[in-house]
């Protein structure tokens, strides 16, 4: 399930009033510098800047090249990055950041590195919000009213209204004012998007003819020089080959190991599989515009009919958790009291009959002459036999309860159009990736029905709408938690989706890599701490 839909909203975090001081400039942690890390990516990044890019491969690169005002550590805590501390006004509308004075931008070709100042922050915000700039980020920052530079190292953001966890949103990556050739807005034609410069631990050096992206250690990184000398991102066009490349030392790391290869790597002592739990889950989404599916009982029947555990075990080696509701597990909003519906075909059939369906001559259920035949649209993914397995198994399960599902594979673009634009589907198979597991407004709020909106299933329920708005407005964390638990319960019962599971992602790397910590979805956030023992640096 590699294709993902990123839903951008705010990040959960505990508010830290005053900041902890950041570590000293040189990393004198006694760990050796040096060595090269080549990691395999399936596919190639489109653009390499944090603003116009929109897929995970670029996201991982930008994590190495750029910094935000604040960062988020392993424990989901807000920590200082470019801003060494900050103040929040009483009314919670003014956020003032005091920037580090020791930060410099990566040097441009044949230039000295320029210092990082408040201008860059202002510039970044403006360029991000410029109408001509095409970026998924915009929506996330509409809550900001204005930004102003108080002095070279102080910048103040004014919010339209106080919101919860605003601080986390200031983790957006900051661009250099002197970076993009166009001072107003950023388009993909701008050379900067292919050769960005930032403040991060690694400097983008070259992109080789075969699209290998070479990043070298930033000697004067303000958190101290990263240990590993070189990161090389190697694009692969064939996942099987990529795994073999890892196993035969052509690369040192695979950021996302294909589930089918996990046993092989587990068996091999030379490699370490590192689980990292992206806030994401897979689901079958129903199009409630179809009267047959508008009936909640039908949707629940389907959910009963599907043996999720069996699929998880035999297709993903049981690497994951079955879920019951709209929030990603591991999120504080997830309601553990709501149990996933069990696998129970009898109950499913019973529900269908209750909904007025009866087996037709051909074994397909029908209701007053209307057959229960549905189209399931799936994006084509080369080698994605995991997807094939799930959808075909799903088709099989539903066949057993007398529902005929027509599986249609469409290539990515066409699929997106038919789902988000034409809404021409009955069931889709997809997965959400969150950076905030607590906000599902764009998924189930009735206002989000329409072209290119995320509520593609046209699920509409006044109660849910109300709760969503409420949870958005409240500033009280506990209150918000209870609201979300309620939402969870309702949606799990209403079953606008058949919620499947959160898969545990595994990155595989050679054991010579040490102290590898991985950020749930930004991945390389802590890469400057990674190191390779001198012996293995070769």
């Amino acid at each position, binding site marked *: 399930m590699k294709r993902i839909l990123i839903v951008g909203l705010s990040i959960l975090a505990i508010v830290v009033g005053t900041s902890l001081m950041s570590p000293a400039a040189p990393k004198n942690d006694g760990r050796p510098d040096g060595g090269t890390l080549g990691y395999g990516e399936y596919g190639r990044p489109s653009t390499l800047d944090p603003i116009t890019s929109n897929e995970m491969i670029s996201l991982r690169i930008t994590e190495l090249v750029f910094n935000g005002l604040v960062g988020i550590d392993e424990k989901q805590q807000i920590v200082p990055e470019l801003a060494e501390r900050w103040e929040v006004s009483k009314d919670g509308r003014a956020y003032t950041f005091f920037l580090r004075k020791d930060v410099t931008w990566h040097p441009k070709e044949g230039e000295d590195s320029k210092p990082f100042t408040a201008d860059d922050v202002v510039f970044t915000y403006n360029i991000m919000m410029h109408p001509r700039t095409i970026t998924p980020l915009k929506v996330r920052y509409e809550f900001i009213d204005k930004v102003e530079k108080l002095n070279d190292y102080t910048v103040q953001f004014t919010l339209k209204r106080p919101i919860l966890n605003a601080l986390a949103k200031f983790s957006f990556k900051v661009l250099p004012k002197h970076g993009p050739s166009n001072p107003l807005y950023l388009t993909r034609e701008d050379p900067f998007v292919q050769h960005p410069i930032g403040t991060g631990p690694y400097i983008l050096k070259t992109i080789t003819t075969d699209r290998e992206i070479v990043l070298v250690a930033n000697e004067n990184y303000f958190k101290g020089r990263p240990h590993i000398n070189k990161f090389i991102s190697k694009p692969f066009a064939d*996942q099987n080959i990529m795994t073999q490349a890892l196993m035969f030392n052509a690369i040192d790391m695979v950021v996302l190991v294909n589930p089918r290869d996990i046993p092989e790597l587990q068996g091999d002592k030379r490699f370490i599989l590192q689980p990292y739990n992206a806030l994401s889950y897979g689901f079958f989404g129903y199009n409630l515009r179809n009267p047959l599916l508008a009936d909640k009982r039908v949707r629940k029947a389907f959910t009963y009919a599907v043996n999720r555990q069996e699929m998880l075990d035999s297709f993903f080696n049981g690497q994951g958790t079955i879920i019951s509701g709209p929030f990603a597990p591991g999120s504080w909003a997830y309601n553990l009291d709501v149990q996933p519906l069990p696998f129970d075909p009898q109950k499913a059939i019973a529900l269908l009959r209750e909904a007025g369906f009866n087996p037709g001559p051909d074994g397909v259920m029908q209701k007053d002459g209307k057959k229960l035949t549905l189209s399931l649209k799936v994006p*084509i993914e080369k080698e994605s036999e995991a997807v094939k*397995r799930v959808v075909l198994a799903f088709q099989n399960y539903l066949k057993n309860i007398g529902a005929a599902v027509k599986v249609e*594979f469409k*290539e990515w673009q066409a699929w997106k159009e038919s789902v988000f634009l034409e809404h021409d589907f009955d069931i889709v198979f997809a997965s959400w990736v969150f950076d905030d597991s607590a906000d599902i407004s764009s998924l189930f709020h009735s206002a989000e029905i329409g072209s290119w909106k995320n509520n593609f299933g046209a699920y509409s329920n006044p109660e849910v709408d109300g709760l969503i708005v409420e949870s958005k407005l409240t500033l009280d964390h506990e209150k918000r938690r209870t609201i979300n638990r309620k939402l969870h319960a309702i949606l799990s019962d209403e079953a606008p989706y058949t919620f499947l599971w959160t898969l545990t992602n595994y990155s595989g790397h050679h054991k010579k890599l040490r102290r590898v910590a991985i950020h749930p979805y930004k991945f390389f956030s802590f890469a400057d701490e990674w190191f390779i023992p001198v012996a293995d640096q070769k």
Partner: protein
Amino acid sequence: MKRYSQTTGEVGESSDLSPWKTADALDLVYVGYGLLIVVLVLVSYVLGAFTWLPYDPEQIRVDLLNAPPGSAGHLLGTDFLGRDILSRLIVGIQAYFLPGLLAIVISLLLGTTLGALAGYRSGEVETLVTYFNNLVDSFPRLVLILLVIAAFKPGIYYIMVVVGVTGVPAVASLIAGKIEFLGQKNFIEAAHVLGLPSRVILLKHILWHHCMPLLVIQATIGMGEAILIETSLSYLGFGVQEPTPSWGNMVQAGANYFFQGKFWPSTAPALSILFTILGFHLLGDGLNGILEGSAGK
């Protein structure tokens, strides 16, 4: 040791034997094998059409993934969803039959027409046909198909139309060459002298009598190409889509487990492709050897 013998040729009977009587043994073997394959294909097409199969090719068995041959009564084992490979191989023919036929029909019809035009009327017409041939030949077939896929959508029929069109030049220049050759043998003139109208000469004498074998051969080869193309596209993810089985998407899906030592799921369909295409080629060569070989002896 090469052996030449004379059938007790008593004075009087010196009529030509049929080429089949005098053909190289090897050629006969090829044709035999080719025909065998053709028959097998047809049989499995029928089997598939009536779903007379050992198992339901779409019946998933989650507890029996990538099973080796012979396990649990699956003669060729099962695939990544525990589906019976043999049954899927048989049904897989369906994926090629009509599409392949479409491709063949297109290339043969267009090809013979253009070829006949070029070979029969020289001058501008011939030049035009030549231009067309070279034009089509300028496209790497797979690239053209990718273009079409991007422009429209990955449908096997779209693809096969492209395959058919890209197959035209081969047929065309074949026919044209043949006609030219016959022309050199003062064949056509002779017919003219006998007062036969051009149409008759073209259709009956040239196309029917002399080009039939060539066309048959081209047809078989065309089918082979259809299969290979679909396989390549399946690898790229644009071939026949699941759950419909095609040999191509079977090889592709199976290959995902190749490096884990599970060879069979991809090898079985790969070998079917191999033997089938080999059969088609040898059939072509055999026929060629026998019919062309006997010509002029």
